[in-house]
């Protein structure tokens, strides 16, 4: 039971990271109707930028960890957001009225560009950092000596996710930008006729998605203590699975799906086999898409002729 609780905690933390990435997928799919295949790599870029900023700040002699983390978070979000904006501008906007598979293929190309750009610029080797946030709480110690740990970094990941999700929900439901986004999601032409700047709204969607992916990248860096140029691919597919599982286009769905995928992956590794954990995640993707393509909280897609 204790072992299970510990795995549950680990799964929730992993799920929070997946959820943050999944939001980017779900928003873009909701508005533009394409799978932003490069989003996993945007997450990877976010991790790298966080790592580099962190290194520079440390070498400048800063010691206040909360301050460093805040600066790292802001820098990483800002630059990664610019990556998201640029990608949309270069690779997706010219294809908006092209045939349906074109943006998808362009996105695959963009994903290769980002992965290999990162490899060329920063080398192929894994980049480790020493643990930044240490310590934690012992929740429960059973008679046979098994300890349920809740580390500080786990708390930070979960809290950051909750705060961001709250801000984000407010943004989409209460602000002008959120209203524009929902309008574009329903009908781009009509929204444009009513004075919504569709191009700008779509750009903003990519910017926000990339910024959240950067947060996920930083969390990943802090939690696992390393980044490498290839981490975006698998994380991206899993986050996409999360978005589909939760119902693509739905924000709470993406978070819910992320948590579900994180839990399933952790529990699978704990009770079955670590080697096949990615197989498990991919199988879930297939099963979900086949048996409930609308996901947990999604709306059914209407087939128009």
């Amino acid at each position, binding site marked *: 039971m204790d072992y299970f609780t510990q795995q549950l905690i680990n799964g929730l933390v992993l799920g929070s990271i997946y959820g943050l990435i999944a939001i980017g997928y779900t928003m873009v799919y909701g508005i533009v109707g394409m799978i932003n295949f490069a989003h996993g790599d945007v997450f990877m870029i976010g991790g790298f930028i966080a790592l580099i900023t962190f290194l520079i700040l440390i070498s400048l002699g800063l010691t206040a960890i909360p301050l460093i983390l805040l600066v790292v978070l802001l820098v990483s979000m800002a630059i990664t957001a610019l990556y998201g904006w640029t990608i949309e501008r270069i690779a997706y906007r010219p294809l908006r009225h092209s045939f349906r598979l074109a943006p998808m293929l362009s996105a695959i190309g963009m994903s290769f560009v980002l992965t290999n750009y990162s490899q060329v610029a920063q*080398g192929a080797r894994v980049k480790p950092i020493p643990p930044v946030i240490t310590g934690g709480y012992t929740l429960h110690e059973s008679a046979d000596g098994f300890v349920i740990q809740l580390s500080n970094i786990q708390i930070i990941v979960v809290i950051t996710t909750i705060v961001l999700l709250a801000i984000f929900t407010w943004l989409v439901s209460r602000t002008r930008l959120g209203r524009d986004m929902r309008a574009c999601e329903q009908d781009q032409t009509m929204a444009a006729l009513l004075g919504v700047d569709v191009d700008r709204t779509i750009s903003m969607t990519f910017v926000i998605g990339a910024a959240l992916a950067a947060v996920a990248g930083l969390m990943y860096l802090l939690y696992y203590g390393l980044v490498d140029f290839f981490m975006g691919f698998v994380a991206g597919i899993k986050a996409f699975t999360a978005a589909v599982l939760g119902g693509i286009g739905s924000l709470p769905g993406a978070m819910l799906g992320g948590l579900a995928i994180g839990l399933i992956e952790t529990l699978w590794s704990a009770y079955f086999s670590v080697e096949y954990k990615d197989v498990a995640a991919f199988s879930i993707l297939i099963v979900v898409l086949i048996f409930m393509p609308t996901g947990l909280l999604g709306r059914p897609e209407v087939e128009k002729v």
Partner: protein
Amino acid sequence: MKAKPGVPSILKTAFVNALIALVLFSLMVGIRTEAGASGQLTYWTRFGELASLVAAVFGGSIVIELLRQWIGPSGAEKLVPPAVKSGMSFIGRYVAPALLIFTLLVPVIFYNQRYILDLAILVLTYVMLGWGLNVVVGLAGLLDLGYVAFYAVGAYSYALLATNFGWSFWVCLPLAGILAAFWGVLLGFPVLRLRGDYLAIVTLAFGEIIRLVIINWQELTGGPNGVSGIPRPSFFGIPLDNSDDGLAAWLHIEYSTTHRIVFLFYLILALALLTNWATIRLRRLPIGRAWEALREDEVACRALGINTTTTKLTAFATGAMFGGFAGAFFATRQGFISPESFTFQESALVLAIVVLGGMGSQLGVALAALTMIGGFELFRSLETYRMLVFGMAMVLIMIWRPRGLIGHRAPTVYLTKAQAISSDLVKEGHG
């Protein structure tokens, strides 16, 4: 008509682009990190590279803006004089036979150049893969991102059957095709209800699952170490070696290792031509027409009483079968296979060949394979930059010619006269 932007505006655009590039590259390029000997990360600056990149973006934006002015707004209809048009179609009619004759003569012309023969075999393997995937993507309009899975199934089928049971290549080749087709149907069944992007993601997941299973099922597949010592093919039972009953001794000619290469060349050429011939024949059958109809409009297909289930399944199975053949050939040519050869990048490469070739055009796919693999060879010395350039090329192709090199479709069925339709006019992938 918008007034042409003047020099200040061009400079302003270039400046803004350079500024964006500066921010984008500042940390990723300007700073280089590396783990030191003790595992501690160190970093050093590379401001020179950063400056040259930003300068390149600045110069590049000016060039692009100027080109835009000269060429005019994108998407404008380009008027082609009828004489040029008829000349093009004249050339078009003879490109395919000329290419075929040239290909047949390649081993004769380049008999002593092992490198060119090897490259030609590689190109032909991708031509075959492209033609195989073309059945699924180009004809049936189903976006398959996991095609390499069938390639892997074919390769491992032959490798395992040959190394464990000692079966000959010619027995295993059909078996590899059948097994791959079986997996194609297995994948096809569940994904029938999906369309477009979802289908693409599921096939991608399927391809990854196959690869992960190959890596982890060590007892059967050898895991990451792969399968080695795969037997070389024989000339219908006559081995191509230096022994007394080898082909060279049998024909009373002097033995040379080039014999096997030439044999492999004609083998893959025959397999590729078989793929092409089967595809062309299938297109004239009701099933082929159903594929093309399915690509154009699935809803209309169903309304007309076409069984979309069997149509999709046969497309998957046919494409997978050719992938399996190519895989078996790959295994026998290499003599060694490992999961590393069957990554998502391979799927994307084959897909890029099909897309660049114009989705459905057999000649286009062959030309695209030649361009892509040839281009890859040119960049061989720049190993790390290869995939970077490949990704950029994919994006640029999508922007410049989303319909590929040969974007015209000659209808398979026509009333009195075949009339090529520009593929811009067909609404593909909306079904």
